[in-house]
C-alpha cells in the first residue's frame, strides 16, 4: 500500500543534495541546542561536585576580589593575598565551628613543565586537620605526611603523572633548589586536587618566606549551625572576607551566565537559520512542483491532503536533522567540551556536558516544533494551488 508518508519521503529524494544540506542545517542547530542544554545540566552538576569535594563549607580569605577568592577556593591562583595565622584561633572560638584547616597556596613557575613551562600549584596543609576534612581522598601509593614541618609532599594523581613521580621519589622545587620527598600519591578524584602538590603547611611557609601567614582557612560547620549567622560573625574579624559554598557557586554561575547568554544567542541564530533553510527548501520544492501539485488535486487530492504531503516532507527533514544533530552531540561532546573550556574563565573538573534521555527528547521535540512551524507556510501555499492554474501554466 502506498502511504502519504512514503510519497513525501520519496519526494525528498528528487533533490538529494538539497535535502541533505537542509538536514545538515537542522542537524547543526540541534547539535548546538542539545550541547547547550547538556552544558546547562553538566556544568552545574560538576560545579556542585567540585564544591562538595572540598570538605568544608566556608572559606575565610584575606580581603580582596571575590572572584579571586572564588577562584582560589576552587582552583588555586596567583597574585594571592595573605592573612595572619592567628585568625585560626579567632575563628575556633565560635560554637558553630566543627573543624578548621589552615591553607597556604603558592604557585611556582616550572620551566620544565610542558613545552614552554607552566605553573605548579603547591598547597600547604595541616596534617592534623586537612586529611580529616578530606577523608574521601584515597591513596594510590603511600599516605599523608604527619609532621607539619617535614620536607615531604603528597601529589595529586595528575601532578604525579606529569612529574613522573612515585612514592619514595624526590621532587625538586624549581628556583629553590630544595628537595622534597614524595610520601604519597592520591588516586584520581576528578577535581582540582588531581593537579595539586600538597606540602606540610609550616614547611611551605618556611620555604616561601610566609611564616605565620595563610591564604585561606577552611571551616567545617557543625550540622545544625546557622551558616548565615555564622558568616555575619566572621565578617566582624578584621581584613577578611568570607566565602561560603553558596556564594562560590553563585559567583561562578555569574561568570558563566555571560558565556551562557552568548552560546544561547548563537543557538537561537542557528535555529533561525535552520528554520529559514527548511522554509526555503520546501518552498522551492513547492514552486518546482507547481504543475504536479495541481495535477494531484485534479486526481483527487484535497487541499488538506496537499498540506499534509508538504508538511510531512518538512517533518521528515526535521526528524532526520534532529537525529543527525543528537548523534553529533554525542559524537562531538568531547570537542564541544574542549571548546567550552577554552571559552570560559573557570570550568569545573568533571564532565561539562551531561547528556541524558530527557535532553535528547527535549531537543527532538524542539526540532520538530521548529519543523512543523517552518512547514506551515510552504504547505499552505501548496494547498492553495488550483489545478486549473497549473494546467494553464502547462499550456503557457
Amino acid at each position: 500500500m502506498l502511504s502519504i508518508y512514503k510519497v513525501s519521503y520519496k519526494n525528498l529524494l528528487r533533490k538529494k543534495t538539497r535535502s541533505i544540506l537542509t538536514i545538515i542545517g537542522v542537524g547543526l542547530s540541534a547539535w548546538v541546542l542539545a550541547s547547550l542544554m547538556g552544558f546547562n545540566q553538566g556544568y552545574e552538576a560538576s560545579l556542585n561536585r567540585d564544591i562538595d569535594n572540598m570538605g568544608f563549607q566556608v572559606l575565610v580569605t584575606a580581603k580582596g576580589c571575590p572572584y579571586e577568592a572564588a577562584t582560589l577556593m576552587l582552583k588555586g591562583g596567583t597574585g594571592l593575598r595573605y592573612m595572619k595565622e592567628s585568625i585560626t584561633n579567632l575563628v575556633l572560638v565560635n560554637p558553630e565551628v566543627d573543624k578548621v584547616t589552615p591553607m597556604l597556596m603558592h604557585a611556582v613557575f616550572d620551566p620544565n613543565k610542558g613545552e614552554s613551562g607552566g605553573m605548579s600549584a603547591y598547597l600547604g596543609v595541616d596534617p592534623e586537620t586537612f586529611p580529616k576534612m578530606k577523608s574521601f581522598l584515597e591513596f594510590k601509593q603511600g599516605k599523608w605526611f604527619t609532621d607539619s614541618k617535614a620536607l615531604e609532599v603528597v601529589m595529586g594523581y595528575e601532578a604525579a603523572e606529569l612529574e613522573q613521580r612515585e612514592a619514595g621519589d624526590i621532587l625538586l622545587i624549581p628556583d629553590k633548589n630544595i628537595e622534597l620527598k614524595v610520601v604519597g600519591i592520591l588516586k584520581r578524584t576528578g577535581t582540582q586536587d588531581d593537579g595539586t602538590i600538597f606540602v606540610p603547611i609550616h614547611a611551605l611557609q618556611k620555604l616561601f618566606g610566609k611564616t605565620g601567614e595563610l591564604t585561606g582557612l577552611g571551616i567545617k560547620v557543625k550540622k545544625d549551625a546557622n551558616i548565615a549567622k555564622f558568616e555575619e560573625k566572621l565578617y566582624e574579624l578584621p581584613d577578611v572576607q568570607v566565602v561560603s559554598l553558596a556564594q562560590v557557586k553563585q559567583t561562578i554561575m555569574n561568570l558563566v551566565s555571560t558565556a551562557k547568554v552568548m552560546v544561547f544567542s548563537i543557538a537561537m541564530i542557528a535555529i533561525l537559520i535552520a528554520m529559514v533553510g527548511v522554509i526555503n527548501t520546501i518552498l522551492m520544492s513547492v514552486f518546482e512542483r507547481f504543475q504536479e501539485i495541481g495535477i494531484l488535486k485534479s486526481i483527487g487530492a484535497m487541499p488538506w491532503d496537499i498540506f499534509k504531503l508538504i508538511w510531512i516532507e518538512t517533518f521528515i527533514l526535521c526528524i532526520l536533522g534532529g537525529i543527525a544533530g543528537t548523534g553529533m552531540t554525542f559524537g562531538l561532546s568531547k570537542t564541544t567540551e574542549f571548546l567550552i573550556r577554552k571559552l570560559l574563565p573557570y570550568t569545573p573538573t568533571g564532565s561539562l556536558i551531561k547528556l541524558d534521555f530527557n535532553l535528547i527528547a527535549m531537543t527532538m521535540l524542539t526540532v520538530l516544533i521548529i519543523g512543523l512551524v517552518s512547514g506551515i507556510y510552504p504547505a499552505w501555499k501548496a494547498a492553495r494551488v488550483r489545478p486549473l492554474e497549473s494546467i494553464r501554466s502547462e499550456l503557457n
Partner: protein
Amino acid sequence: MENQIAIKAQHLKKIYRRGIEEIYAVNDISLDIQKGEYVSFIGPSGSGKTTLINILGCLDNPSSGKLSIGDKEIFSEGKTLSEKDLTKIRRELFGYIFQKFYLIPTLTVLENVLLPSTFYKKDGTENHASELLNMLGIDKRKNHLPGQLSGGEMQRVAIARALVNYPQILLADEPTGNLDSSRSHEISEILKDLNQHKELTIILVTHNMELARTADRVVELRDGVVKL
C-alpha cells in the same frame, strides 16, 4: 439498450475579462454526451476546446449555463462550486490524462498508478492497479522508475493512474501531444479499446485528426462555439 446521458451541458459560457474587453472562451455551448460515448473535440488554438473540457471535467466553473453529470446537477445559473466541492466530484467521477505525464520520478510505476488512492480510495484499488498495468502491457515494468520508461510507456502509466479509482468519465487533453506517430497510434488503440470493452465515457481534446477520428463523435470548435 437505451443510451443514458453522462454529461448534459446547456448554454455554457465562459467569459474572461481583459480590462473592459470581454472574451468569450466558451460561448453558449449546449451538448449531450451519452454514457459510454467517445467524443473528441478538435479546433485551432484559442477555439475554446480546453476551456470547455475544463468545465466539463469540473476543473473550472462556467460563467453561466448549466451542467449535469448523470443525475447530478453540478452547475446551474448563479451557483458555483468551491474548490473542495469540485475536488469531491472530480475524484468520484473523473479520470484525467494530460499531454505531460506528470509521473512522480521517485515513485515506481505501480506506486504512480496507486497515487490517487493515497488521497481517495475505492475498494480493490491495489488489485485493480495490477490489472490495469497488465491490460496496458506494462506489468513487467511495474517496479521501474518513470525515467526508465519510453514516452508511450509513461503515457500508459498515466492512463492506468487515471483509471485506478474506477472513473465513469475519462478526460484526455492532448494525450499524444508528446509522442511520436507510432506511440500516438498505440495510445489511440488503448483509448478505443477502453471505450469499447470497458464502456468508459471518453472526452478527448486533440489536434491530431487521425486520433480524433477514432472517436464516435467529433465536435469541432471555433471561437468558442460548436461549428456545425
